């Protein structure tokens, strides 16, 4: 079950009979190109290629009976380990669970908040979910979440002013008198280079004991994904990543960059616009997509 690019690489190595270090270097060049084409960030590609090279020396691929196969398996294993080799689910620690969604503008947070609510209600025996409209910037953002909440059968909470931390805190306080299993906080999109808005996230985190802080990121992110993951993680220590718009044809290399940079699991992927389009993340599937 070898992906297209790796298969070509493997065939090239196999076809040369005796394998030399030059064969390995050429194979690595091919893989490097493929990863960059897939939007994996430059520095992450460098680090990945270096790991594979070290492994090929360490496992002495040159002396192997079937070097092409061994090399290919090694690349796949290394990619799987970079991506996180086990599906890591949502932390459903103690109730009520408190999840905050953060990320760049337009990445899919509001839609994903509703999807997460739908997932908890339908698949996780968590019938009472509250969605909190804490995006006080975008026109009609609260209305958007309110409509989605109604559609998935979740409760909706917001306030008619523009202080997001106050809304979040009051939503949290309201749990004292409500029977709620999980709360999902939607936040305004913000750039990873906007210090003031990252500060706002820090205030949110200081005020509420979140079970998870999830970075919602577009599968088609380019080279900037490393900085996106780094800056959001440095600000609030994210606990997981959700990749959206995986129903497109972006190779999704940003997944590798972000996982590697933030060191947290990719938990879910969004695969469509409707609220039932959320799937657990499976590393093997995206590994072959990234390699091409």
């Amino acid at each position, binding site marked *: 079950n070898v992906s297209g690019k790796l298969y070509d690489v493997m065939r090239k190595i196999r076809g040369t009979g005796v394998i030399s270090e030059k064969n390995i270097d050429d194979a690595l060049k091919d893989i490097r190109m493929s990863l960059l084409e897939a939007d994996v960030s430059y520095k992450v590609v460098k680090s990945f290629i270096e790991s594979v090279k070290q492994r090929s020396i360490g496992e002495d691929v040159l002396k192997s009976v079937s070097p092409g196969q061994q090399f290919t398996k090694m690349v796949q294993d290394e990619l799987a380990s970079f991506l996180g080799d086990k599906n890591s689910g949502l932390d459903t620690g103690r109730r009520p669970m408190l999840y905050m969604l953060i990320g760049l503008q337009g990445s899919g947070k509001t839609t994903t908040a509703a999807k997460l609510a739908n997932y908890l209600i339908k698949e996780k025996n968590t019938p009472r979910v509250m969605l909190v409209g804490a995006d006080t910037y975008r026109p009609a953002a609260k209305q*958007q979440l309110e409509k989605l909440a109604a559609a998935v059968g979740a409760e909706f909470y917001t306030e008619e002013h523009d202080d997001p931390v106050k809304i979040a805190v009051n939503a949290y306080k309201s749990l004292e008198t409500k029977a709620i299993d999980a709360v999902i906080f939607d936040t305004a999109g913000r*750039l990873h280079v906007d210090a003031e808005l990252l500060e706002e996230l820090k205030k949110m985190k200081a005020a509420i004991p979140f079970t998870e802080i999830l970075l919602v990121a*577009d599968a*088609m*992110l380019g080279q900037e994904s490393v900085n996106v993951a780094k800056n959001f993680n440095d600000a609030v220590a994210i606990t997981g990543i959700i990749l959206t*718009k995986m129903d497109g044809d972006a190779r999704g290399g940003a997944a590798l960059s972000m996982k590697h940079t933030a060191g947290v699991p990719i938990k879910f992927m969004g695969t469509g*616009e409707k609220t039932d389009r959320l799937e657990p993340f499976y590393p093997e599937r995206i590994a072959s997509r990234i390699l091409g």
Partner: protein
Amino acid sequence: NIFSSGPAREHIEDVEEALIEADIDLEIISGILEAIKRDKISDYEGVKKLLKDIFSDSLNQPSVAPQALKKVIILCGINGAGKTTTAAKLSGIYAKNGGKVIFAAADTFRAAAIEQLEAWAKASGTRIIKGIDGGDPAAVVFDAVKNAKNGGCDMLIIDTAGRLHTKSNLMLELGKIKKVVLKDYPEDEIDTLLVIDANTGKNAFSQAKEFNESIKLTGVILTKFDSSAKGGSIIRIAHELRLPIKYMTYGEDAGAISVFDPQEFVDKLFD
């Protein structure tokens, strides 16, 4: 900066890294590196000048002065790129020059999409034509076109629903919308602009290619340029698809838009 010291080969590697990190297409990058070696360019300003020269053919576009604005603008693009917000910004430019704008809220699918454009319309006193939630977007456009033609408005801005270029039924829907406009406006009076998020990687080219094939584009708007992303994917789009980059937006408020500036774009590549 990348040329402050060290041997030439290191410089080439540093230039390559900067260009890759700018999301520029890899084939275009190898062409640039060849030119640097061939012309023995050995300093920072030299590389920037080379880039401006290489890109100027594809990035320097005919002026988009307000009087060059067309009668109808159709904004299209994938989900979350910034279409609705850009509609508001474009109306701001046009209104500032005394023009009367009408919005067509042709995203009838996404939750609160109509409300979102309505909020912008209210803020700027712009007339808006809308339909019912879940209704046929082509019907809204039909209605808007009639109003635009009869109501003495100088520009109709059509905001469409986000859609992935891989969904053929949605691409057909977009084609249908343009056909409605073409019943009342000649092709040369319509600007069909693809909205692209500067944070997008190589997929931006696939988007442009597919949208162009479904609904002949006349240009691109680069959004979220206030991000640290360089938006380098537009170079291949401009070069291979011969599409002008008409505007760039750099913030979330109505004024954060300007005519695309190739110099500013190249300068940012090495920030």
